[in-house]
């Protein structure tokens, strides 16, 4: 591990100021991904600004019904929160399907969003990787890419975003609140992460020194149901091959409104807007769900070793939507 300085921030402004002075510094929260990447030599910050003890550790309800999740709320506390379990089951389920109990206790809301891809080449200093070392090349397209992208990838990078939580937040139209050297701003979750393009080293639209302070969940319509379904190689403690987060508002056997996000398929949580459009106002039947899934996946460009994800996503999406449509009100 490269040597680094360690500073503890007292408040958000102080944390932002500390990092503004350090172009090669990084924020540290739970550290479950960052410390590992530092040990691997993938991340080499020369300063860590510890933000774990900032006063961003509460989940509070705003007057307009928004649930505001502080950035340092742990993944386990968020999954267990009664308001989240009752109103946003998709989020609780996504969190509980990720990592292990020990990791969820350390990992934070903000940190979960900023975790890096688990592409094996990204984590292996002995191989090229455009995300880790821009311009060095991408062995994944011709090499091992079973877990990698089928949608939205570029010649430079076929990595997937590993978060389950972010997929649920994408379907919930969550808004990420940040503070940086230029002040505060609100970024829709669906616009936080980028597609790789020719700058795969940039996972998100955040600028250096911009700190996530909270994530806002807008209220759902009372009739809405939501759920998360994850497919992986073993029953627990594994990243998604594919996953589906969906929010459905049914009305008389039809779909009044629906929001769908896919995990394990792209460089960012993939909002399935083609499928959503096909389903708004349509009968809530398995046939229509399948047609919508296939319409969404018609844009997929699978690699040689991950074409299995196309039928897997379609089946998982149909199963998720059928399950939600059949749920008692």
């Amino acid at each position, binding site marked *: 591990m490269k040597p680094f300085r360690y500073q503890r921030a007292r408040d958000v402004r102080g944390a932002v100021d500390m990092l503004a002075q350090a172009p090669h510094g990084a924020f540290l929260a739970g550290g*479950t991904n960052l410390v590992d990447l530092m040990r691997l030599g993938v991340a080499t910050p020369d300063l860590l600004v510890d933000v774990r003890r900032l006063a961003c550790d509460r989940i509070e309800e705003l007057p307009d019904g928004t649930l505001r999740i502080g950035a340092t709320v742990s993944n386990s506390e968020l999954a267990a929160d009664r308001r989240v379990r009752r109103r946003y089951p998709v989020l609780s389920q996504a969190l509980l399907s990720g990592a292990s109990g020990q990791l969820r206790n350390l990992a934070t809301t903000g940190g979960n969003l900023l975790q890096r891809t688990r592409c094996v080449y990204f984590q292996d200093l002995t191989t090229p990787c455009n995300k880790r070392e821009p311009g060095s090349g991408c062995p994944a397209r011709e090499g091992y890419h079973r877990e990698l992208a089928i949608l939205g990838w570029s010649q430079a990078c076929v990595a997937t975003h590993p978060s389950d939580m972010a997929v649920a937040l994408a379907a919930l139209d969550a808004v990420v609140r940040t503070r940086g050297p230029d002040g505060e701003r609100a970024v829709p979750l669906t616009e936080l992460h980028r597609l790789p393009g020719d700058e795969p080293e940039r996972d998100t639209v955040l600028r250096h020194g911009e700190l996530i302070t909270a994530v806002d969940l807008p209220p759902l319509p009372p009739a809405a149901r939501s759920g998360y379904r994850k497919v992986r190689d073993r029953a627990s403690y594994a990243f998604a091959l594919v996953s589906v987060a969906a929010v459905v508002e049914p009305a008389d056997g039809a779909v009044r409104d629906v929001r769908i996000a896919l995990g394990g398929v792209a460089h960012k949580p993939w909002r399935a807007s083609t499928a959503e459009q096909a389903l708004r106002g349509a009968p809530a039947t398995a046939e229509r769900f399948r047609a919508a899934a296939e319409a969404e996946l018609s844009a997929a460009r699978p690699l040689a070793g991950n074409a299995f994800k196309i039928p897997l996503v379609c089946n998982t999406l149909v199963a998720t939507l059928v399950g939600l449509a059949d749920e008692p009100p």
Partner: protein
Amino acid sequence: MEITLRVDGQERRLVVDTRTSLLDALRERLGITSPKKGCDHGQCGACTVLLGGRRALSCLALAVAYEDAEIVTAAGLAEGGDLHPMQRSFIDHDALQCGYCTPGQIVSAVGMLAEAEAGWPSAVSADPDADEVVLDDAEIAERMSGNLCRCGAYVNIRPAIAEVARR
């Protein structure tokens, strides 16, 4: 950096490089060897300790960041020399072979029971909004999936934990 760690009820002062993991600080600097180094990547659970009562991986925690935490290791669970009920149960059920993962399994199981007590759901909970958690085999397996046992002693680990959970 000079730091103070509170481990198993004792305050310990030490000077560490910022790169030192909590696991290395405990084992190499303080001589507390019950947390084990398995993978050193947060994948095996052998280094599990309690931080403020919650189970966590000490290999991914930097020692300098946990001056505020009450740290409990498997060795610290045995108060006054009496084995913790979870330790006793692991022995009674022969819930180990080589024993390397055992301290992590035991600390994790103690932390897991506290989570269940608090009503936290898991990915396999039939009713995630239920007030009470019933720790059947599926629940225990899911909640303990962050602790690997290469000897495959799971068949005895599960009942060892279930017995303590029933009390």
